[in-house]
């Protein structure tokens, strides 16, 4: 079946994309960057971080979960929306315990990179100092819940695909544990034990913060060579663009 092309505008710029793709991807195809912390190309969007919030025909919607359609008038880069995104990022900083100076993900962290991009010097909200623990019991993964923003990327992306019939989605190795304020990400007791080195590294790479770390590898990349050392996070260096290229390549 022939793909249908949608015509729409982003910040008054005429754009086109295949009908049905998410606004976040449609924007990328037209060279427009919509920041996100939870979305990852190739997996089902979760809409959990709200950083990609845009206005579609004057309504607030998340760009990762909304399919683009003919005639949409989309607002992305406006003062109001950027302030909204800033406030979401600031809330994440105050809700968790993020100490960039000693974090090995510093320079490669998307949360930090977005804070720089939006020029956040200090959060407008009070720090919560929530009590979170650290799980260092896994032989390969150091799991710091102080930094987790519950984006669910690890749950959606890191799957055990051994001994499964072709076409099956695989079993999640990471999962939510407990509820509400106490909710946290946990490694599956059985599947976690068999975590390969490759999947452990992938879990660290797709984590937008420094919550999932591969043990004993910290600070190996010198300052100056980390992803966001020289350039602000953008369409060119965001983790999703890389993922999108890989997905298309496959």
């Amino acid at each position, binding site marked *: 079946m022939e793909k249908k092309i949608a015509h729409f505008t982003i910040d008054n710029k005429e754009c086109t994309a295949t009908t049905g793709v998410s606004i976040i991807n449609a924007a990328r195809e037209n060279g427009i960057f919509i920041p996100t912390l939870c979305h990852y190309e190739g997996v089902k969007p979760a809409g959990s971080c709200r950083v990609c919030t845009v206005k579609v025909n004057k309504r607030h919607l998340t760009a990762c979960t909304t399919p683009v359609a003919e005639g949409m008038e989309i607002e992305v880069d406006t003062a109001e929306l950027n302030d909204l995104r800033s406030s979401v990022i600031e809330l994440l900083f105050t809700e968790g*315990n993020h*100490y960039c*100076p*000693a974090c*090995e993900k510093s320079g490669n962290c998307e949360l930090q990179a977005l804070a720089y991009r939006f020029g956040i010097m200090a959060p407008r909200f009070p720090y919560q*100092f*929530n*009590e*979170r623990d*650290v799980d*260092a*019991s896994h032989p390969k993964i*150091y799991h710091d819940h*102080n930094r987790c923003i519950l984006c669910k990327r690890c749950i959606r992306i890191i799957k055990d695909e051994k001994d499964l019939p072709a076409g099956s989605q695989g079993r999640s190795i990471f999962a939510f544990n407990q509820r509400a304020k106490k909710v946290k990400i946990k490694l599956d007791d059985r599947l976690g034990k068999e975590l390969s080195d490759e999947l452990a590294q992938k879990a660290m790479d797709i984590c937008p913060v420094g919550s999932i*770390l591969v*043990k*004993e*590898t*910290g*600070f*190996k*990349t*010198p*300052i*100056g060579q980390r992803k966001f050392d020289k350039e602000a996070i953008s369409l060119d260096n965001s983790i999703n663009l890389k993922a999108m290229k890989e997905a298309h390549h496959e």
Partner: protein
Amino acid sequence: MPKKITIEPVTRVEGHGKVTIHMDDDNQVVQSRLHIVEFRGFERFIQGRPYWEAPVLVQRLCGICPVSHHLAAAKAMDMIVGAGTGDGLSPTGEKMRRLMHYGQIFQSHALHFFHLASPDLLFGINADPNIRNIIGVALEHKDLAVQGVMMRKFGQEIIQATAGKKIHGTGAIPGGINKSLSKEERDSFLKGEDPLNIDKMIEWSLGALEFFKGYHKANRELIDDFASFPSSHLSLVRKDGAMDLYHGVLRAVDSEGKKILHDIDYQDYASYIGEEVKNWTYMKFPFLKEIGKQDGWYRVGPLARMNTVDFIPTPLAQKEHELFRAYTNGKPNGMSMHMHWARLIEILHSAEMMKELLNDDDIMGNDLVVKGNKTLEGVGLLEAPRGTLFHHYRINRNDQIEMANLIVSTTNNNIPMNLAVESVAKKYLNGHAVISEGMLNAVEVAIRAYDPCLSCATHALGKMPLEISLVDKDSNIIDKKYSG
């Protein structure tokens, strides 16, 4: 880590000193105490963190000599990852770390001498504080001020090239280093545009020494007698007795030069050195266990190092060391103001060491990290600008730090600084019951000779927030003065 703790003042580094002096009925000084009122929580809040984070986290203790903490923690972690210490690393790993360290010593000493101490020497202890600062030096002795700024810059550039950043870098990792120098980086230090090249740094280091020696000649009483007292001295020395600021064995000598700590392996430091806590200061009191709490104290830092080492393994600094030792007929030198002289000899030695390391091709190698059999405990020591720095960690089987003990250089100098203050208090105060401006300045100068970490605030503009209280025998405050 996420406990709701408010640490105020933030760390012991944001310096704030407090001195109390006790007088008897005849207005004679009975006792004086230097209180360090900041609280440091690093040993506690590093617990639970992964061991490889320690070199980056703990260096936040300080913004002036973070490299020392970074490297001392990394040396302890070398033990934990089974790389041993000192010569256990790859040649590139060890030499890059040494270059970082000598860059640090060079810039920190230059900062202290040119920015902090030179105003006292150039304008005199009793000069108006409005002139007696680095701005005054810049206005009246422009060449010296420029040298101070550029020497510091050179050291900072070395740190950036080795650690990634001028302050709080990440270069040293357990078992080695995360980068080596490129040829361009190396050449920029060896043949950089005037004045930022190593030969100019050596020339200026010699010039600063000549300046001090000239000043000493003209002001012998101040330099020799001010806050002078005998003491033991402790430092790391190379196995053959040479000065080595990065690695070695632990040696202490008494005031006569007799060895009282015989070149021990510092992994066993806890068998030889104890720490006493007193209720009037947050700073602990280390002592040599064999001698005891009362008399087991010692001095560390540039002066102590001049007294413990047998020689300096670079030719120009060795010549100066010979002159230094000859001044006291080979006996240990106990004159606090000679700390400045010693510091300048170390600036020269650091410059010579940097030149030697920059000319070594290993500095551009690719073999960066060494690992062996993991252990659960490690001690890392080095000679920081202000003296011997101890880092001791124990981890659990999940790679989390369980215990950390740090003895920072200034802590080792706790009793000597108290004695220096007492000596000055007696000289200026006996028979008086008020604190004069000269007395306040003299106390500052005595403390500043040790370049203590508590004077980090001093590193702004030559001012140390200092509070002095004069107390009678019934603990009533007779007089109080502030500076800074």
